[in-house]
C-alpha cells in the first residue's frame, strides 16, 4: 500500500469506528436501556395500547435493529467511496 492509500485506509477505519460506536450505543439503549433497565419507569407511559417499556422489549427494539443495519449499510457504502476503498 502506498502512503496516501495507507492514510485513507486509516481515516476510513476511524470514521467506520465512530459510526459503529454511535449505532452500538443506540442498539444498547433501545434494548438493554428501554427494554430492560428502564422498563418499569417506561411502562408508566402508554404507547398505542402498550406499556412503552414492554413495547420496546417485544417490538420496538427489533424494529430499531433492522433500521440500524440498513443505515449502516448505506453509510458504509458512502464511506467506501469517500475514501476510495470500495470494491471494483
Amino acid at each position, binding site marked *: 500500500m502506498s502512503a496516501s492509500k495507507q492514510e485513507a485506509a486509516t481515516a476510513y477505519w476511524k470514521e*467506520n469506528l465512530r459510526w459503529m460506536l454511535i449505532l452500538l450505543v443506540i442498539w444498547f439503549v433501545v434494548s438493554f436501556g428501554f427494554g430492560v433497565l428502564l422498563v418499569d419507569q417506561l*411502562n408508566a407511559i402508554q404507547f398505542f395500547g402498550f*406499556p412503552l417499556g414492554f413495547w420496546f*422489549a417485544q417490538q420496538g427494539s427489533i424494529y430499531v*435493529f433492522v433500521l440500524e*443495519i440498513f443505515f449502516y*449499510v448505506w453509510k458504509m457504502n458512502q464511506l467506501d467511496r469517500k475514501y476510495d476503498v470500495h470494491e471494483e
Partner: protein
Amino acid sequence: MDTQTLIYLFVGASFALYIGIAIWTRAGSTSEYYVASKGVHPVLNGMATGADWMSAASFISMAGIIAFAGYDGSVYLMGWTGGYVLLAMCLAPYLRKFGKFTVPEFVGARYYSQTARVVAVICVIFISFTYVAGQMRGVGIVFSRYLEVDINTGVMIGMAIVFFYSVLGGMKGITYTQVAQYCVMIFAYMVPAIFISMMVTGNPIPQLGFGSEVSGTGQSVLERLNGLGAELGFTPYTDGSKSTTDIFFITMALMVGTAGLPHVIVRFFTTPTVRDARKSAGYALLFIAVLYTTAPAVAAFARTNLLTSVPNTSYEEVPAWFKTWENAGLIAWMDKNSDGVIQYGPGAAFAGKPEFTAERGASGERLLKNAPTPTTTEVYVDNDIMVLANPEIAGLPGWVIALIAAGGLAAALSTAAGLLLVISTSISHDLLKSNLMPNISEKKELLAARVAAGVAVVVAGLFGIYPPAFVAQVVAFAFGLAAASFFPVIVMGIFSKKMNKEGAIAGMLVGLIFTFSYIVYYKFINPTAGPNEWWFGISPEGIGTLGMIFNFIAAVVVSKFTAAPPEHIQHLVEDIRVPRGAGAAIDH
C-alpha cells in the same frame, strides 16, 4: 379433501420442491460445497440465513414460551435478533473480506496457530451437534403429530431428506433450499397469525392487533391479559418475574451467542462482495423480524384465548381443541378437587411431564400417573401448543393446519441442514485438509466432506431417536459457549492489531472453561440451586455473558505480557478492514 390428505399433499409437495432444488443446484467443487462459490445474492442470502437461523424451536415453541413467560419471554425476542446488529457491524464484512471457508480457518490464520484452530474446531462441532439434536427431534415430533407415524420413523424420514440435499448440494444446495423453506415457513406462520389477530381484535396485522382492543371488551389485549391473569393469581403479563440482572445477562448471552454461532457466521462467507455481506445481514434480520415481531402477538392472543375459555369451565363444556390436544398428550387435566370444573392458576399442576394411564376419569378426562402438587391449579399446557393449536382455536380450515405441518418441517430441516454442513466442513477442511492430510486432492476433500456430512446426519438422527435427557438444558451450552469463545476471539482479531496467539488462546480457554463449569455445576450437579446461590443472581442461561467478559480480560492481560503478533499478521488485519480486493472465491 380431508385435513389428513391435505397434510400429506402439502408436506409431500414441499419435500419434492426441496429435492428438486437440490438436484438442480448440486455442488461440483469444494468452493461450491463450502460457500456456494460466494455467488449468492444478498436478498436470497438473507432469506437463507433466516431459515437457517429460525429453528423448530423458533417456529413451534417460542410463541408458547412467551405466552407463559410474558415479559420474561422478551429475552428471546431481543436476544435472537440483536445479535444481527453485532454481526453486521463487527463480524460479517471483515470475515467475508478474509475470504476463506470456515470460522476455525479464520481463527487459525489470524492467530497463526494450529492449536487455536483445533480448539475452534472442537467448539464448532460441540455447539453444532448440541443444536442439531434438537432439530431432528423437532422433525420427529411434527411427523408424529400430523402424519400419524411414530417419532422414530419421522426422524428417519427427516434424516433421509436432509442427507439427500446436504450431501448432494453442499452449501449451494442448502442455500437455495433454505430460500424455499423460508417462504414456506413464513407463509405458514403468518396465515394463522393474521386470522387469529382478526378474531381477537379485528385488526389483520398481528403487530398492530397486539396493541389494539379486544373486540367487545373496551380493553387493550395487554390490559385484558393482566386483568384475567390477576383474577387467577398470575403475575402481570407485562411484568415478568425474573430479576433485572438475569434478564440483562440472558439477553446479552443470546445476542452475543447468536453473533458467535458458526452456522450463522458462515452464511456471510457466501456473498459475492463485502458490500453484499453487510446488506445480507440487514435482509436476514428483516426476514427474521417478520416472525419475531409476530410471535409475541401470537403469544398474547393465544394466552387471551386460553384464559377466557378454559379456567372455571366444566370439562364437558370446554372447547374441542382442549380435548384434541389432551388426546395428543400436550394438554392434561388432573381434577384434583373432583368437581368436574377446570381450575387454572400459577404453578405446576403435577410433577414433571404428563404420563397418562389408559383409563378415563369421571368427567371423561385422561387419568395421569404423575404425583399432584399442593397447588390448586389442575392444568398442564405444553409450550408447543400455542402455535400448533392456533388454527383450530381460530376455527381455520384444514389447509391451514397442513400449512403449519409443512412450515414446522421447513424450520427444523433448514436449520439441521445448515448445522450439518458446518460440521462436515469443519471435519473435512479444518481437520483433514489442514491437519491430518494436507496433500489431499480437491476431489477427495469433497468426498470427505460428503462422507462427514453423511456420518453427521446419522449421529444427529440417533440423537433424535434416543434423545439424551439433557437436550433441553444444552441449548444454554450452545449460546453460552459461542458467546464465551468465538465472539471475543473474532472481534479482537479484527479490532485489535496487537492481539496475539497467546492472548487469544488464553481468552478462549478461560471463557470456555468458566462457562462450561458454571453450566455443568448449576444444570447437572446442583440443579435445584436457585437465584440465591447463582453468582450475582445470573442463571446458567446468562452466564455466557460473564464468560465473554472473562475472555476479553484474560486475552488483553496475557497479550500485554507476550510478544506482539508478527508483521504479516498486522498487515492481514489492515487488509481485512477495507473492502477493496475481496474478489470472488479464493482458491487454496
